[in-house]
């Protein structure tokens, strides 16, 4: 017979009445029975007792009946919670320290988890997200997007891929429909209609490209992102059919795509992709030479049941066949990667590092709280044993301790969550534009669940497991150990000391890592850049091919170069200016070349070097030292035979045994047409100093610099300017804009930045991870200090009697000080040794971040232990002082 819930709930509100009724009812029964017994001649008092005896355990039955109309387990839980809350409230210092400690541990983990979830774990916002992949060609060990031809061959021969979409992203000058709107440089995706079908996204309005629109002539249509539609068309419902000007040509809007395609998909170097136009491919894009024209983006869809690993195996086989067929594919392999795995990008190693370090912080926090609880348990051992001997079941004792510590853990978790949320806001607000993945960081149900699980797990770790032995105690031991003189047992002390050693070890690892990262970052940011970086302003201009064709004759482009450079140099406050295709620390262009007289027998035998075309003021503007020979000059006119500069790296690699000056290089443009027809022979006139060309952390690669006016086939419509000013470079921005406007009012000046900002962007992810790790390390060191302080204080308190005795027997202050400090130091040294070993064992986590610093950097390996030992001594000093100041009489009386 089940008692309906509604009855129990109703009973809950009539509690007092029901209690009183029950008492009355039982009293009535007992009186009646007693009266009956009395009638048999038994005296009144005896009759009442007999009635009671006959009835049984009145209190027990009353309890049992009360449980009938209530929720026994829930009420017991509520009782435990109330009791726990009272216990915690009675020890506010303990509670606050414990809650803050847990908050630090859980908060740090929640914060890092929310980032890890956003960039590593959370499913992609696409249908069939688990089947989406990217295909890369592997050239010289590094991944690059495949060529259109390769992708076509891969797709037609594949059994693992259902489809493979090839697309590209270009910087273009775009203006919306407003007549007065000036063009701005944006990123425009060049995609087939299948790009959207592969991702499973459908337009908010309108449609995507038809196969006809991907052919030349029909391609002047555009799909906008929702945000561009909102910002430039005021979310107008009649946008379809209106025009957008892209690189001076009108495109008709045919669709608006919701903002579900994330920015990390194509990197964020040049800002987000805000619209798409058809990717028009001509038959020659698939010919043998164009197989070498790599660098496209891809979205692949695996057939159901296939994995990326299976696809990789297949693609490697196909890549082998392609290498037989096309010379430009020799030595080129392939790899298929789940799309979700490409999301983290440069953040992946950062996250591995941070996840490892916050795990250590949580360990530190748990150890600290466990230490606090152990110290408290010694005091509470008595209480627990007495409660056990008064009949409290072991289960109910455990349940009560569990309630208490879980409450502590949840409280700490809640505080930590708030801290992580605030920290998350800070990170997202600071979030660098070149890490668009961070925009997706948020505290959602997944993160909340994680925090809850972590808090409960933490509570179990620090509280309940160490508490179990206490509930096993018996009255005998408790009485024998007697009140406050109880030493807590040798085992407990060993446990506590082990915790301190572990804390110091974690601390050493954290401080070691932070020091190495900071040193790397400093080295990276303060290395010799090879040029003078002060007061340099940079910007980019995209010249639309309609008005600035690069073929057959880039005359308009070259006229623009010269005019713009002249106007820039005429600006007051501008000392030097150059128009170039690149500037340090990155040069994204490269070119194959052969040394004159050593013609390569095969295309893939040709070395490649970074390559750029500049004007004759490039070297002087950037302040790169001339090592040998001469710089470009005004006399190197367009009609003269081409001349080039090389950097020291190229001179050392290819001209170690002879003078490079006057040597000839044959530069070959692989990606357009046949190599022989586009080969340019150029004479080396000078060697200049190395500047970084693959980022700050990579040694400069060989580089060739030509004059734009002498190399028309390489004079394309993407131009950077670099300007050195006499004062703050940002003051020159408006003048530079004016100069550009005076030449061509339709050209936007974009990517305007000082070179300092460009360099800083290079180290964004490092700075982010170093800052976060530094913060966590500070937290970790604080926790360790509290931990050591707590344990040593406890040690002194435990030994009060012994110390008193020693003092009485004539021990000097120094002896006592040494007794305490020695204990602390012994623990510290053990921890440091373990920490150093652990730090080296985990070096792999860090190696990617190290720059010109090794994990065994002597100043760090020696410095960190000294610092940690110093901190440990400091943490021990206060308790040690207290020990030396003990009055032996009081100390002895305490027992």
């Amino acid at each position, binding site marked *: 017979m089940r*008692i309906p819930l509604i009855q129990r709930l109703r009973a809950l509100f009539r509690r007092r009445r029901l209690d009183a009724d029950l008492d009355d009812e039982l009293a009535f029964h007992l009186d009646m*029975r007693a009266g009956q017994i009395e009638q048999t001649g038994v005296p009144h008092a005896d009759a009442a007792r007999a009635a009671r005896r*006959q009835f049984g355990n009145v209190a027990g*039955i009353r309890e*049992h009946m009360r449980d*009938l109309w209530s929720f026994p387990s829930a009420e017991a839980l509520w009782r435990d919670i109330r009791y726990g809350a009272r216990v915690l409230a009675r020890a506010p210092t303990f509670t606050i320290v414990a809650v803050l400690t847990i908050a630090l541990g859980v908060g740090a983990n929640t914060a890092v988890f929310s980032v890890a979830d956003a960039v590593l774990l959370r499913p992609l916002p696409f249908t069939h997200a688990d089947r989406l992949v990217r295909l890369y060609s592997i050239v010289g060990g590094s991944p690059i997007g495949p060529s259109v031809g390769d992708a076509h061959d891969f797709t037609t021969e594949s059994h693992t891929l259902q489809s493979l979409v090839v697309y590209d992203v270009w910087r273009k000058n775009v203006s919306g429909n407003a007549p007065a709107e000036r063009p701005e440089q944006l990123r425009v995706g060049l995609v087939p209609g299948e790009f959207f079908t592969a991702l499973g996204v459908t337009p908010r309005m309108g449609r995507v490209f038809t196969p006809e629109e991907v052919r030349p002539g029909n391609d002047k249509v555009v799909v906008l992102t929702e945000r561009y539609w909102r910002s430039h068309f005021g979310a107008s419902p009649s946008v379809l059919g209106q025009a957008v000007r892209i690189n001076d040509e009108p495109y008709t809007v045919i669709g608006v795509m919701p903002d579900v395609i994330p920015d990390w998909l194509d990197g964020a170097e040049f800002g987000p992709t805000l619209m798409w136009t058809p990717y028009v491919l001509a038959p020659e894009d698939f010919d043998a030479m164009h197989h070498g024209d790599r660098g496209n983006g891809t979205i692949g869809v695996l057939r159901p049941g296939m994995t990326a690993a299976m696809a990789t195996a297949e693609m490697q086989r196909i890549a082998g066949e392609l290498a037989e067929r096309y010379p430009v594919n020799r030595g080129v392999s392939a790899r298929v990667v789940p799309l979700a795995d490409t999301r983290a990008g440069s953040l992946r190693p950062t996250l591995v590092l941070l996840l490892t370090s916050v795990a250590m912080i949580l360990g530190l926090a748990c150890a600290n709280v466990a230490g606090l609880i152990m110290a408290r348990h010694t005091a509470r051992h008595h209480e627990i044993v007495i409660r056990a001997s008064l009949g409290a079941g072991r289960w109910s004792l455990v349940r009560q301790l569990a309630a208490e510590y879980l409450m502590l853990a949840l409280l700490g978790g809640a505080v930590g969550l708030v801290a992580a949320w605030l920290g998350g806001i800070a990170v997202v607000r600071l979030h660098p534009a070149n890490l668009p993945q961070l925009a997706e960081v948020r505290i959602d149900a997944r993160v909340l669940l994680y925090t809850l699980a972590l808090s409960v797990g933490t509570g179990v770790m620090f509280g309940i497991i160490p508490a179990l032995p206490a509930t096993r105690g018996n009255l005998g031991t408790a009485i024998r150990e007697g009140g406050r003189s109880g030493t807590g047992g040798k085992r407990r002390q060993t446990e506590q000391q082990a915790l301190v050693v572990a804390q110091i070890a974690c601390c050493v690892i954290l401080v070691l890592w932070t020091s190495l990262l900071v040193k790397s970052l400093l080295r990276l940011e303060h290395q010799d850049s090879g040029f003078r970086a002060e007061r340099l302003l940079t910007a980019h201009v995209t010249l639309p091919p309609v008005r600035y064709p690069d073929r057959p004759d880039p005359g308009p482009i070259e006229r623009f170069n010269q005019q713009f450079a002249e106007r820039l140099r005429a600006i007051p406050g501008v000392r030097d200016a150059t128009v170039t295709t690149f500037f340090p620390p990155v040069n994204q262009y490269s070119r194959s070349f052969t040394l004159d007289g050593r013609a390569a027998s095969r295309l893939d035998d040709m070395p490649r070097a970074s390559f750029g075309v500049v004007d004759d003021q490039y070297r002087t503007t950037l302040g790169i030292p001339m090592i040998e020979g001469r710089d470009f000059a005004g006399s190197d006119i367009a009609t003269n035979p081409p001349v080039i500069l090389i950097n020291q790296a190229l001179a050392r690699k290819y001209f170690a045994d002879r003078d490079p000056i006057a040597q000839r290089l044959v530069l070959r443009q692989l990606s357009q047409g046949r190599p022989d027809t586009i080969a340019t022979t150029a004479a080396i006139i000078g060697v200049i100093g190395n500047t970084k060309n693959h980022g700050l952390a990579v040694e400069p690669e060989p580089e060739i610099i030509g004059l734009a006016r002498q190399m028309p086939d390489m004079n394309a419509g993407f131009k950077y300017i670099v300007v050195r000013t006499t004062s703050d470079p940002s003051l020159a921005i408006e003048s530079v804009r004016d100069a550009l406007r005076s030449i061509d009012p339709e050209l936007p000046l974009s990517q305007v930045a000082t070179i300092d900002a460009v360099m800083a962007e290079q180290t964004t992810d490092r700075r982010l991870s170093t800052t976060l790790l530094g913060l966590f390390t500070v937290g970790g060191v604080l926790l360790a200090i509290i931990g050591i302080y707590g344990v040593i204080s406890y040690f002194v308190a435990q030994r009060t009697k012994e110390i008193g005795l020693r003092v009485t027997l004539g021990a000097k202050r120094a002896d006592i000080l040494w007794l305490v400090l020695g204990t602390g130091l012994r623990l510290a040294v053990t921890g440091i040794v373990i920490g150093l070993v652990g730090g080296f064992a985990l070096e792999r986590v860090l190696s990617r971040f190290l720059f010109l610093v090794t994990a065994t950097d002597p100043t760090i390996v020696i410095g960190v232990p000294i610092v940690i030992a110093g901190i440990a001594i400091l943490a021990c000093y206060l308790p040690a002082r207290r020990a030396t100041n003990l009055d032996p009489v009081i100390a002895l009386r305490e027992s």
Partner: protein
Amino acid sequence: MQGTLDMLVLKALTRESLHGYAVAEWIRATSRDVLRVQEGALYPALHRLELAGMLTSEWAVSDKGRRAKYYSLTAAGRKHLATEAQSWHQLSGAIALVMRTA
């Protein structure tokens, strides 16, 4: 057997409303002193039956002039008693049959 006690309690209340003591006494007297209800079990049974909707209760003044809690059968209780009684008869009849065979 809890079910048996419930059945006896319900049976005791078929004719009139009774308080707990009277229920115990009625069962004892009707069974000619054979069935002595454990008083400690009686009250939980009464309360359980009441909560389950088999009984209702009200406070009234007893013949001795004291306030007492009187229980009476509800329609659900009557129905429950009928089914319980039927299965009890089946069971006891079956046991008797088994015991009667030599």
